[in-house]
């Protein structure tokens, strides 16, 4: 009788990387549903395109590195990267934008650095920054939320726009963004930034159609959607609370202080928390384990840093939102953070 030889331990707590990544996908659902409600079904096309590109790129890379084609796919991480990137870009961005971004994220950021687990930078965000730098126009073409928009696109119109950059009726995305008065509408964060420079106060700016209840129309609900998903991840112990909390604290505390001193110039913490990619960043992007710090203490520092950089760039930088830049900058600091937060090994204290 021959027995099986195996290394210890002979059991496992049954939570695998693939499964964790699957949970991340589930947790994205509420946010993405809301996003497709407010910005049209384009996001689904973007996700489909991104996932397809990612899977093919991943297979090509593993084959090129002489491993079985499906071996790297098994952990589902490429799919998560693709989805995150697809959610982050404007829903009506032309198809080649997402394809280029995904290819860059998977091939360069992930595999050239040595494959899963070796990458210094968050692949989705590195892809996003590349796109933002290379195609600033396409990457900032966010439609106004459907509730305040003049146009709403059908499935076919959306697909047509993504493929050919015009609706079947010949409108460009630029034109779709125009409001009732014919003025192009921007994202809430954009609006705040530009209006402030034109001398308006925040109170006046909030009167605009882009805002309702707590923050930007549409955006606030999407953020809440991602918040719900993120809480689910924490409840499922897929992520720990350290990074989301650190991120939000790093962003909201300075925002709160600044808001007290300059209520008409500095948006308050709630506006920050529910605008742009805050919640997506806090719960889904900054929590990417590969490029984050490893110890819990390190994670808090890492996340505080991201939050703070987001605050700084949003307040004084040239870009309206800054999650991607902040994450990449913090990624660079990870080795340093890890170095100084490494816990003392048993028996090496005092």
């Amino acid at each position: 009788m021959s027995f099986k030889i195996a290394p210890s331990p002979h059991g496992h707590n049954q939570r695998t990387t693939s499964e964790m990544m699957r949970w991340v996908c589930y947790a994205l659902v509420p946010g993405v549903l809301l996003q497709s409600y407010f910005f049209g079904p384009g996001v689904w096309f973007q996700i489909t395109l991104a996932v397809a590109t990612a899977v093919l790129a991943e297979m090509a890379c593993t084959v090129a590195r002489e491993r079985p084609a499906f071996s790297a796919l098994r952990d589902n991480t490429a799919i998560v990267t693709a989805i995150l990137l697809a959610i982050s870009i404007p829903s009506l961005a032309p198809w080649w934008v997402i394809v280029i971004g995904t290819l860059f994220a998977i091939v360069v950021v992930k595999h050239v650095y040595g494959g899963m687990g070796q990458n210094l930078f968050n692949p989705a965000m590195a892809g996003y920054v590349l796109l933002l730098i290379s195609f600033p126009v396409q990457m900032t073409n966010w439609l106004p939320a459907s509730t305040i928009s003049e146009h709403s696109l059908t499935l076919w119109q959306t697909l047509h726009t993504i493929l050919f950059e015009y609706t079947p009726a010949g409108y460009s995305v630029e034109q779709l963004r125009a409001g009732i008065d014919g003025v192009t509408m921007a994202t809430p964060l954009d609006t705040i930034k530009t209006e402030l420079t034109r001398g308006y106060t925040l109170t006046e700016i909030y009167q605009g159609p882009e805002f309702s209840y707590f923050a930007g129309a549409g955006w606030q609900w999407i953020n809440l959607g991602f918040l719900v998903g993120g809480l689910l991840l924490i409840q499922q112990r897929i992520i720990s609370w350290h990074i989301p909390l650190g991120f939000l604290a790093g962003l909201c505390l300075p925002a709160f202080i600044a808001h007290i001193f300059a209520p008409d110039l500095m948006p308050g913490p709630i506006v920050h928390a529910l605008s742009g990619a805050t919640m997506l960043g806090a719960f889904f992007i900054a929590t990417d384990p590969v490029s984050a710090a490893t110890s819990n203490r390190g994670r808090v520092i890492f996340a505080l840093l991201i939050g703070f950089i987001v605050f700084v760039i949003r307040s004084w930088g040239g870009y309206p939102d800054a999650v991607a830049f902040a994450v990449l900058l913090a990624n660079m600091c990870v080795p340093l953070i890890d170095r100084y937060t490494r816990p003392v090994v048993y028996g090496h204290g005092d």
Partner: protein
Amino acid sequence: MSLFGAVIALGVLALIFGVILGFAAVKFRVESDPIVDQIDEILPQTQCGQCGYPGCRPYAQAIADGDDINKCPPGGEATIKQLADLMGVEPKPLDDAHGEEDVKKVAIIREDECIGCTKCIQACPVDAILGAAKQMHTVIEHECTGCDLCVEPCPVDCIDMVAVKPKPETWQWDLDTVKENIKANSIPVKVVE
């Protein structure tokens, strides 16, 4: 604008890290042994002469003077890699003109056949053979480097080179070998009644 900011920030960060690294490299540099000693440290000290030099130290000297690093079969790939690291050159495959990498062996003298000629004693580079003229000789197993040099001189061919058997405490946790270990050793049970 903030693009420039980002690029500049990245650049500055990279620069700072670079400076720190450079500084650390200078500050924490360790004073090292003379190169020949370091090379000799790496060589396996089998003293077999397969490299073409009379022992490891002469070969270490030769490497320091520019000879190839791939001439030592007992050291094999691992030694070549270490030498390459030390000398700052590319590792190359073992030069098979000098022999091939082999499992570790020790010499065993079939003592009943030994005629006590002392030839092997004279050949052994590490004095691992005990015995006197006309008396049976034996190998001090843990001193033997497995260099093979005593086999040739023996006039009655009573020296065998046998592979060193792994022991539980020297086993390298290679689970693939377990099945073999068991198979190779399941001797049928002798019953003595």
